[in-house]
């Protein structure tokens, strides 16, 4: 499977997914696509995620192995900056700080840089390595994840009778930047742009293209599909939002109904979202819950003063001091090294 295969396979898979609900709705299967599929997807999502998290949580952590990116706590006068304290945390409090930085600000990705080998005639070997600060991936990832999160939160209003005030707040901020009717949300635009950036990066950088699998393209196409259908639905086809809310609220309150007159585009959107949910637990998207379990980040660098116990530690075959002395007793005696079982060299 090469790049072209992985790429087209994923693209076609997502295009094929568009047709399924379209044909389904034409065949009058609204209830199937509007009720059964979303429920199934949600069950698969919940079940899958919980199952995977339990798998991780049940696997023991035999050793405390944080990746230390700052000075360890040693003698009190040894210089430690606030950065050191977070990046080589001495206690749970700082571990939480470190995790917060990772999860909220993508701290490690912020370190990213690009290496370049330049011809450099001043050096006898003729080359010089240069490291560029490279924040594009960090910016792209932040834009992608945060716009996704905001969109997700905005959608909460569809599942509640009256939307909570923070949702309203998010909406008004999100809609603040572009004046139009209906309100244009920047988050949607940012999501599309950042997803396209992530996709292009994968396709154009030869290293990334080489490592990418179908399972890297597929979620990107899927999310692009969701974003595009969402935008089409909202701004172009102008689906009946009251009817949509009736359906979604019905799902949330376990009184599912299928109101009349919602366009096929909505069912396509909903189907793609369902696929994303069902696919989530079995894919790399699990990095989201996974990052919380990352032992190189979520443990304190306090090994030398707080003992870590490994639940499955066992005693392997060992080589004792006496075995060594038995091997070399005579020579040790000659060299004047004290022995446990003394001997007389004369004998």
């Amino acid at each position, binding site marked *: 499977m090469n790049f072209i295969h992985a790429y087209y396979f994923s693209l076609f898979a997502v295009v094929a997914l568009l047709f399924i609900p379209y044909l389904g709705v034409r065949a009058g299967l609204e209830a199937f696509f509007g009720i059964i599929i979303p429920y199934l997807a949600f069950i698969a999502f919940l079940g899958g995620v919980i199952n995977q998290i339990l798998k991780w949580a049940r696997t023991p952590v035999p050793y405390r192995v944080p990746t230390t990116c700052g000075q360890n706590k040693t003698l009190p006068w040894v210089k430690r900056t606030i950065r050191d304290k977070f990046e080589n945390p001495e206690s749970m409090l700082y571990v939480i700080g470190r995790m917060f930085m990772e999860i909220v600000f993508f701290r490690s990705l912020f370190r990213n840089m690009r290496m370049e080998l330049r011809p450099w005639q001043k050096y006898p070997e003729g080359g010089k390595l240069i490291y560029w600060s490279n924040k594009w991936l960090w910016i792209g990832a932040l834009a992608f994840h945060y716009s996704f999160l905001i969109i997700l939160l905005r959608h909460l209003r569809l599942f509640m009778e009256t939307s909570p005030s923070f949702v309203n707040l998010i909406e008004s901020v999100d809609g603040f930047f572009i004046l139009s009717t209906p309100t244009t949300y920047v988050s949607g635009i940012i999501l599309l742009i950042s997803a396209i950036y992530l996709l292009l990066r994968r396709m154009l950088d030869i290293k*990334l293209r*080489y*490592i990418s699998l179908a399972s890297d393209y597929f979620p990107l196409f899927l999310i692009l599909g969701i974003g595009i259908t969402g935008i089409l639905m909202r701004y172009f086809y102008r689906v009946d939002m009251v009817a949509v809310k009736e359906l979604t609220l019905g799902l949330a309150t376990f009184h599912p109904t299928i109101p009349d007159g919602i366009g096929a585009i909505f069912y396509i959107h909903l189907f793609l979202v369902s696929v994303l949910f069902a696919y989530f637990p*079995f894919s790399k998207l*699990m990095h989201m819950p996974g990052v919380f379990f990352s032992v190189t980040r979520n443990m304190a660098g306090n090994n*030398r003063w707080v003992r870590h116990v490994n639940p499955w530690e066992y005693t392997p075959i060992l080589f004792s*001091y006496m075995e060594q002395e038995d091997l070399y007793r005579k020579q040790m005696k000659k060299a004047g090294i004290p022995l446990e079982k003394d001997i007389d060299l004369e004998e």
Partner: protein
Amino acid sequence: MASVPKPVELIQIESKPPDQPWMDNKAEFKAGAYCNAALPKWLEILDYPYPRRWSVTDDDWNLPENWKEIFLKAFEDRLNRFRSFRLFMDICVRCGACADKCHYFIGGGDPKNMPVLRAELLRSIYRRYFTTSGKLFGKLAGARDLTEDVLKELFYYLYQCSECRRCSVFCPYGIDMAEMTILGRELLSSVGINIEWIMASVGSCYTTGSHIGAPPHAFKDTVDFFCDECEEITGIRPHPDFNRKGAEILFVAPSGDYFADPGTYTFMGYLLLFEYLGLDSTLSGYAAEGGNFGYFGSHEMGKRLNYKIYSEARRLGVKWILGGECGHMWRVINQYMDTWNGPADFLEEPVSPITGTKFENAQTTKMVHICEFTADLIKNGKLKLDKSRNDHIIPTFHDSCNPARAFGFFEEPRYIIHNVCNNFYEMPEDTIREKTFCCGSGSGLNADENLELRMRGGLPRANAVRYVHEKYGVNHLSCICAVDRAVFPPLLEYWVPEVDVIGIHEMVANALIFPEESERKTDLRLRPLKGFESEDTDED
């Protein structure tokens, strides 16, 4: 020794990945880029499975009949025992942030040396045999069958990773290839695939006491010789002793430091310092090796070797343990020692007998790094130092991977350097501290036959040394790691021949003023001090 192309040729690095997808490419064993297969005798000594003669370039590796089954069982076992392993198999998004962070990729350009792809080699097997999607969708889901070719490829690339953890610093999820490499090598060991350099070192450590195979009496001989040298140069004779019960402190150094130059000068530095202080310490011929060559390829073997330190401390009845300048030794002491072989409740919380400082940070391991110990001495004004005696040395400092990323030990060595010499220059920021570059020969890869890989892997480090050499006239690369002191000389000889390698305690001993010393005209290497150059020129 494999012949290595010249630096100007080696630096022409081709980094365009091949056209075929990586899953279909077989590993091609390039001379100079792999280590030889382990001899059966070591495996027998150590009780490892499937000792036999085989060679990496053979078509038939003489694997056990049911190797696949054994390998997969070992795989499953590790998945169930290490959360790190299971998680790292599941959550990589192939964002590529780690890709150009590995020194082997930077210096060699082989795409399978991108940490992400190195890990994918293992993941492809994981998906195929341990995930539903991989079982169902095969290659589409990034899964592939475990074949002999895949196994060989794993061997090739798991032994082109020095377990330096640099990738893990940059990964947004902290995915650590080093962890996977150790475990992956365990899997290879389970079907009898090991490399000679590691197994010979481990086998020697296990019975004789040190990786160089020096039994206790030979160890003593060597140290006596160092005492002669010290006396000749400084007029002071150190008085170390061996296996002495009732000493206050057990001192454990990496055996590299009493094996070859320039590590030996560091060892002389330790001896002179202890003599200066009149420290009540002893050496042991049983716990004669701080460096742990076992954990490079197996947690269990790491534990078996590490066991000796606590066990000897208990036998001798010391109060606490002092450890020498060594990288992988300190990774083990920090990350594993207490968990493996503790609790060390028979020892006391370390207190410096000279300054009275309590090392509360070493409360449970009861083991103190000699750089902490010395930094504390300097801080408390207990050492009389003449910095100018190091004026012929313009050092930079190499953060060794292990103390850097598996401990976080940055400041103490720098503090000492600032106090024992006048001219110190840091390498560029992106190449030091947690972003430091590996020497290129870590984790047991410093076999002679592996020289080209080592020179390639060491390029980023050497190139940064070149930078400070050109800019500030740096002429010494200082470090706190015995592997560094063994592998940097050939690396720098190749890339930056103007620069020497030096341990911190060698510089300490150069600067240390003894009350009754003879006039110092040379350093420990018998090189003239600044101001005494002329007296020596006649002899040269």
